[in-house]
């Protein structure tokens, strides 16, 4: 039976995380359909149709699906479920919100944050903040899966799927209602897709000082991340948090500045290819995972790093 992938998109293109989730389901070797919903989402549906491995796009052009409320989305997906053995989304905040509800509606156990699909019923997922990797075999007839996308590459063009219009099931929208959204404005690359990530911790001391991290990131065209302590203290917005209960990233280069390296933080970045740590405490646990460690005061080292990077670039 086929695979249904729930796509996230901005109206014109499928998101990077959904493209990675598409790559992740390839080992299933099954026909893959992509669900694109939202008002004015035709361009995104057309984009989905061009992706390698996609044989059909289910398209719902409906304003009610533009904000990703869990109740109508879960009802929509559950209504399509009969034709699919696997129902998959990227393990983003939205994916986790919607897909666990889908699993509840279908009376199956969710497979959260899957890092590898071994076969149609066997999946690998990290538990205990990534301190253990569990392989599970699902006994459910349908598998509802969220994929931890950090280590997958984005699916590329190379398909020519049909786009089929679908309709929404009954109106479930009255349960919850969108009010507003306050998105952190940044022209930096996205945390979960950037090749380089520079993160700051509690040691930055204030949101003004956190700008040091932004400046280093700018020199590297990097995304900015943060530890929980930096977010809790208000130095950085909530969606910068990297870790067990924040975002999971695996860039080519991760630079941790003034971050101690608690297991909850490591859970979100230890699959990065190269890790750099700058910390004034040479005993800081972050050095145990760092390829390059610099024991230094960040308030001296970070501005110097900015200058040195400028030289390299120039």
């Amino acid at each position: 039976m086929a695979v249904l992938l729930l796509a996230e998109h901005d109206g014109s293109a499928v998101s990077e995380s959904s493209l990675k989730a598409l790559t992740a389901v390839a080992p299933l070797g099954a026909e893959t359909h992509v669900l694109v919903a939202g008002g004015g989402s035709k361009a995104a549906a057309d984009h989905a149709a061009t992706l390698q491995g996609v044989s059909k796009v289910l398209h719902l052009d409906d304003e009610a699906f533009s904000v990703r409320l869990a109740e109508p989305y879960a009802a929509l997906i559950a209504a399509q479920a009969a034709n699919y053995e696997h129902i998959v989304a990227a393990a983003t905040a939205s994916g986790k919100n919607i897909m666990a509800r889908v699993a509840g509606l279908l009376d199956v156990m969710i497979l959260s944050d899957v890092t590898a699909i071994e076969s149609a019923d066997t999946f690998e997922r990290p538990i205990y903040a990534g301190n253990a990797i569990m392989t599970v075999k699902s006994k459910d007839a349908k598998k509802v899966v969220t994929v931890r996308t950090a280590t997958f590459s984005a699916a590329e063009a190379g398909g020519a799927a049909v786009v089929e219009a679908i309709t929404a099931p009954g109106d479930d929208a009255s349960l919850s209602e969108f009010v507003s959204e306050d998105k952190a404005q940044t022209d930096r690359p996205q945390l979960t897709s950037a090749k380089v990530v520079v993160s700051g911790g509690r040691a930055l001391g204030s949101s003004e000082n956190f700008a040091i991290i932004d400046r280093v990131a700018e020199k590297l065209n990097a995304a900015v991340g943060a530890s929980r302590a930096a977010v809790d203290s208000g130095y950085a917005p909530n969606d910068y948090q990297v870790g067990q209960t924040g975002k999971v990233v695996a860039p080519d280069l991760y630079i941790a500045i003034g971050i101690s390296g608690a297991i909850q933080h490591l859970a979100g970045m230890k699959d990065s290819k190269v890790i750099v740590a700058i910390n004034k405490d040479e005993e800081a646990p972050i050095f145990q995972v760092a390829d390059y460690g610099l024991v230094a005061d960040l308030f001296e080292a970070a501005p110097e790093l900015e200058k040195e990077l400028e030289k390299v670039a120039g």
Partner: protein
Amino acid sequence: MKVLVPVKRVIDYNVKVRVKADNTGVDLANVKMSMNPFDEIAVEEAIRLKEAGKASEIIVVSVGVKQSQETLRTGLAMGADRAILIEAAETVDTDVEPLAVAKLLAKVVEEEQPGLVLLGKQAIDNDCNATGQMLAAVLGWPQATFASKLEITDDGAQVIREVDGGLQTIKIKTPAIVTVDLRLNEPRYASLPNIMKAKKKPMEMKTPADYGVDVSPRLEVVKVVEPASRQAGIKVGSVAELVDKLKNEAGVI
């Protein structure tokens, strides 16, 4: 309005987790266990609602081994009014799956008729991030996950959620499910007098059979292994050396 708060007994977040040599799970014998940190935040929020006159009674409920009584006592000492333990596992190695937990909680909801169920967004042991959403599905209730602010209104609640890219505000009708994120509040510590008082608060003992719920797992654990470990690298002496290594040795800039 009654508020129901499901709390899970998990390995303490400070404990270094070790995978068992036979690869069947992680070693939970003789390690420190605590209330899941997100559930402390949920209990705290319920107490604040009660203090503000928005909640009338707080019921904490846990699904798991007998020892989860300790976790429930912690909730009672913080300020919950009574507790329900659903003994659904005989050994600490059995993790009752979110789907089964959600079904049991749905039965408790039917009996208790709370206006709000406040759960953690995620249990730090299985890292599922699912129970609240599944419970909402089973009940057909609205859900507001990853809450960083909760406001009870006349006809429901307004919730600020931590989402990708920033914050989202939604309105939900009650009764509803809310799962809490880290920034919602800072949980209090129980005072000694309150710990003593908690010993006298009522705790009901139940089993899945009482509710007619089948808790047998849907996922079979094939194996549990250690993650690939990372070797510590080298210390560099200066920023200039660091940049040189990144450029010429690692080739990442």
